[in-house]
């Protein structure tokens, strides 16, 4: 699944570690989401969407 997490994080000027702290996850998890190696659960996806003030479908693209 493609996502805009890296783009939005960089726009906010946050490091992966800072985003990880805000989401209460590890930096490794943020990195895995950004590189598309891991698709987050629905609660974490909602947390990301809320943090970036975006709709989930604007953040994640199933890439059909």
């Amino acid at each position, binding site marked *: 699944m493609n996502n805009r997490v890296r783009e939005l994080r960089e726009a906010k000027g946050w490091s992966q570690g800072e985003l990880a702290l805000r989401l*209460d*996850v*590890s930096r*490794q*998890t943020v990195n*895995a989401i950004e590189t598309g190696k*891991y698709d987050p659960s629905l609660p*974490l996806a909602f947390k990301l969407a809320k943090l970036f003030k975006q709709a989930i479908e604007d953040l994640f693209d199933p890439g059909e």
Partner: protein
Amino acid sequence: MKRQTRQQYRMRVWLLMAVYVALIFFVWPHAKTASSLPLRALFALLPTVPVIGVIAVMLHHVMCSDELEQRIHTNALGIATAIVCIASLIGGFLAAAHVLALGGDILLWVFPLVCVSYAASRWLLARRYGGAGCE
């Protein structure tokens, strides 16, 4: 539950393992020489206490991990369990067929084998997700 830092987790595990090694070297040998049966049983079982502590620390660590880390831990535990089951089956069948002579002492190696397989699987799985290990 509060997340443990990697340093806290390692320190707790190393501390308990140091207790375990001390018990193995200084207490466990008395299990063979103690006069009464209850005392021999106590000396023999004492090393399991720090091991139970290590398991508790590991459980706490897994429970406090995030969703990706929990996935890595549980997958690694599954792989480690499969490895130990297969090794036990192979050893068991060979011993039952009198191809190999295995004593009861072999059971002492089950927990270390689980730990080594778990650590190796966890490292490999963490690499798959682009990390060097779980925090």
